[in-house]
């Protein structure tokens, strides 16, 4: 199954993803700053942050925390590699869930109040977005007859035309997944720091760097998923995909800036309602037609 292209794609993903995600997050932060009338940081700020974290001393609370964070990073990178290597979407999503679970376990393992709140919140967020993620995989199967990314991209028309409901639903849960307002919590790095840093509050130095690295890989994977709605057998389609991804990113920054934070009940309700109506209706139509 593995051919030369998928090996090249995996290698490119492994090497380029952190840079690409740093640029994305740099653009995001600059756009956010401009919306607020500020200058904002440099484009590669996320990369410098990462390099700094790797050069700092790391104080770990217990040894199991290290193992869990390494496992988190491994599974996050693995799911991206499977995706960009043209592998099975189900495998991608299951290993992504594994990655999340390891991070949550790492937060629980330190036995600290703020980490625990962060971990509980993360579980709730997973509960909110997992149904839509799985449904999206099913949607791709229904419209192309395969879970394999390599087969899905052989389609003739952009899949967003066949599955607009899934696209809207997926964009919606992406806000949750990328921890943007209104579905984020008051963690530090944003001048409101009620629960310190939540999930990653007790990680430091290199170990925290690893979790940040995993986040960069995950972000590229998520944006790749958005791209998958637009990629076709047409050689020009990656261009459209990149435009679409940029547009989605802009909408993300915009929502992040204009919406006040909501409580978790609202998050859960909204996410499931969107999943049910946008995803469900689209699924029904795909089944009928």
């Amino acid at each position: 199954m593995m051919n030369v292209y998928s090996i090249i794609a995996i290698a490119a993903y492994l090497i380029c993803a952190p840079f690409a995600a740093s640029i994305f997050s740099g653009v995001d932060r600059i756009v956010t700053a401009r919306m607020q009338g500020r200058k904002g940081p440099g484009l590669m700020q996320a990369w410098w942050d990462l390099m700094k974290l790797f050069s700092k001393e790391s104080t770990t609370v217990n040894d199991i925390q290290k193992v869990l964070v390494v496992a988190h990073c491994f599974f996050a990178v693995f799911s991206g590699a499977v995706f960009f290597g043209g592998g099975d979407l189900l495998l991608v999503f299951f290993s992504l869930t594994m990655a999340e679970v390891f991070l949550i376990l790492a937060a629980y393992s330190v036995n600290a109040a703020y980490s625990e709140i962060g971990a509980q919140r993360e579980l709730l967020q997973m509960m909110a977005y997992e149904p839509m993620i799985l449904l999206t995989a099913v949607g791709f199967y229904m419209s192309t007859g395969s879970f394999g990314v390599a087969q899905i991209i052989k389609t003739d028309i952009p899949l967003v035309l066949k599955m607009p409901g899934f696209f809207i639903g997926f964009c919606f849960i992406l806000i949750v997944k990328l921890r943007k307002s209104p579905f984020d919590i008051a963690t530090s790095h944003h001048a409101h720091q009620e629960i310190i840093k939540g999930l990653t509050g007790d990680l430091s130095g290199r170990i925290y760097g690893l979790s940040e690295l995993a986040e960069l890989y995950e972000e590229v994977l998520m944006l790749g998923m958005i791209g998958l709605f637009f990629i076709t057998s047409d050689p020009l389609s990656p261009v459209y995909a990149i435009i679409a991804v940029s547009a989605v990113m802009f909408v993300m920054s915009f929502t992040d800036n204009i919406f006040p934070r909501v409580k978790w009940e609202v998050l859960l309700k909204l996410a499931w309602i969107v999943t049910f109506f946008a995803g469900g209706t689209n699924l029904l139509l795909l089944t009928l037609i």
Partner: protein
Amino acid sequence: MKISRSPWLLHYDGSSCNGCDIEVLAATTPRFDVERFGIINTGNPKHADIFLCTGGINAQNQDVVRQIYDQMPDPKVVLACGICACDGGIFKDCYNILGGTDTVIPVDVYVPGCAVRPEALIDGVIKALAILDDKKARMKKEGYRSLTSEEYRKKRETADA
């Protein structure tokens, strides 16, 4: 790679009158925007590189300041912001004030002013960045490590004796 490209700071309000704290927050507003230096105001000592302390040390907050300082991973620098944090300021003679930040932890940069101006604060942070880079280089070369608050206390005691 220089650590000063991504300094994350932790702001702790000791027994400040809040004048300095407002100025610290002013530094993050559009007019001064410290984020352009890559500075993030993180509330987490475990993620911070710069400890920004405002207000004097009193009987109640001394342990808090020590604990925050000890939780920060190396390399780290401490910035005393405002004259209260430098030496107790106008509250110096109060019964509950022990003195400036350096009564409990080693301070690297003193930024005077009452209240400290955002410009002075940013200058102070830039100065702290050079020290941060230097500490990182020494960490790599000679295994440098900051004093813990306990070691600092002992050192002060022997110096006083």
